[in-house]
């Protein structure tokens, strides 16, 4: 493989990461896309597409939902396709490379996202100093780092042979992996704690409990949408109670016509209750 080809493949790897960072999850990471691009670079588009299709089927169920890291199908698919095309291997051979790489890159991903965490207090300080460009710069810097982290090793690996990749994957000691998992598990607790620090007051503690307990006991069967619906209902009830009772009103006016819950109350009439 020529150096140029290796570099281009490194850029495809970076593109798959940018898909899930700067490009709004436009789906450049899907193996069909990367298979096509790698095929284009290595001069065998239709083979690349077929390999892509195979990897795509394998990874159909892998999504990237939520805060926990998932296996990196973007770089995995890129390198898998490249390896198969250069070794003249079949689509099945592609998976032999794709899977360990996807796992390895998830680790790299975790590490990078842990690392980016350290930029956040820095951004905070820049805000304090009024350095607006600096704040934006940090956002860009993250992109730049990702570009290097994802393209350079991929390009090198491609240029100097794919055998090294497996060595690296096998070389990481288990306790390091577990340690990184531990960091990735704890950091969201920090994020949510900081949010709680902002929005919580003593008076809201009972509502934190009311949101937490059903989620904890019933689990994901009760979706966030369901809990949010209940939360809105409770908020509306509290709103009515305060509105009425601060003025010592009845819940419904004496005529039987109900008062709109969130209107100012002065000029409401019962006809327009639902329409407005």
């Amino acid at each position, binding site marked *: 493989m020529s150096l140029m080809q290796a570099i281009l493949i490194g850029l495809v790897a970076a593109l798959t990461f940018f898909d899930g*960072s*700067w*490009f*709004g999850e436009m*789906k450049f990471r*899907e193996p*069909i896309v990367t298979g*096509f691009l790698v095929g284009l670079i290595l001069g065998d588009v239709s083979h690349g*597409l077929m390999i*892509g299709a195979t990897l*795509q*089927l394998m990874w*159909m169920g892998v*999504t*990237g939902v939520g*805060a*926990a890291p998932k296996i990196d199908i973007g770089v995995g698919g890129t390198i898998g396709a490249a390896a198969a095309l250069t070794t003249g291997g079949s689509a099945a051979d592609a998976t032999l490379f794709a899977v360990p790489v996807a796992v390895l890159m998830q680790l790299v991903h975790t590490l990078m996202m*842990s690392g980016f*965490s*350290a*930029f*956040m*207090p820095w951004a905070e300080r820049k*805000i304090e100093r009024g350095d607006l460009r600096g704040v934006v710069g*940090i956002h860009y810097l993250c*992109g730049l780092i990702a570009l290097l982290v994802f393209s350079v090793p991929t390009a090198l690996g491609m240029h100097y042979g794919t055998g090294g990749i497996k060595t690296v994957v096998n070389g990481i000691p288990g306790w*390091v992996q*577990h340690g990184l998992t*531990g*960091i*990735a*598990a704890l*950091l969201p*607790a*920090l*994020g*949510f*704690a900081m*949010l709680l*620090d*902002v*929005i919580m007051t003593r*008076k*809201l*503690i009972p*509502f934190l*409990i009311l*949101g*937490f307990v059903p*989620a*904890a006991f019933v689990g994901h069967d009760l979706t966030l*949408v369901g*809990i*949010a619906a209940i939360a809105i209902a*409770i*908020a509306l009830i509290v*709103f009515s109670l305060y509105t009425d009772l601060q003025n010592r009103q009845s819940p419904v006016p004496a005529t039987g016509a109900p008062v709109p819950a969130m*209107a100012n109350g*002065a000029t409401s009439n019962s006809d*327009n209750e639902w329409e407005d």
Partner: protein
Amino acid sequence: MANVQRQPDVRALPKKEFRSIFWRSFSLLGSFNFERMEGLGFLYAMLPSLKRIYRDDEAGLKNAMSRHLETFNMTVAPSPLVMGTAVAMEEKAKADPTFDTTAISAVKVSLMGPLSGIGDTFFWGIFRILAVSLAIGFAQQGSVLGPIVLLVVFNIPNFLTRWYSLKFGYSQGQGIMRSMGSANTMQLFTYCAGIVGAMAMGSMTAFWVPITSPLKFTISKNHIVIQDYLDQIFPALLPIAFTLGVLWLLKKRLPVMGVIGIVIAGGFLLGALGIIAGAAE
């Protein structure tokens, strides 16, 4: 609401700003990290609007920027809805000094959970599967239509959602802000937004803080799985315990960098020792 005085300030977001937010919303995950998640990306999208709103108020600008650097996480496609609403609320906050800005954070927090629930179902569940399914036949035959179909089918809803959710979010936000005439109603609104926010935080802590314990002992053939006991006392005990633990550190007025250091070092240690791990999948 029908019985609210007509106010002259009902207007759309300036076109240039609309476009800024729209495009910048694509970079929402650009600096994703486990601490603030999409916080910096959110701030980046809000920045042009914040600069306009607080053009003559540096302190206000700084506060608003800090506010939007806060932890945020949701499906990216419908995120402009939240941005639009937040811009409308910031406008109100600037216009009315008695406005309680914690309501802005509370509203953002309230929206991120349910919109992610819906958004992930559509974008990860439906549109991705659909796009891939339609593309895969072409790809298997080596046809270039494969990637083209995939990208087009997926991105039509992606772009449309961003565009219309931004429109909707801004006008909706303006509507709510206008309907709050008296100071009393506004306080009440803040409190009620806080209620929804707090409940959302409670449920998101249970769902999105993925701490479990992989600890297992086998003593003379008895398997003791610590997580089972924890679940028996209270499911999601570790997520809430660690979150409140970190909150306690923050309340101690430790420097934030220190708390981060503690969390990272602690996380590595506990993880390496096999005491904690991520969510069991």
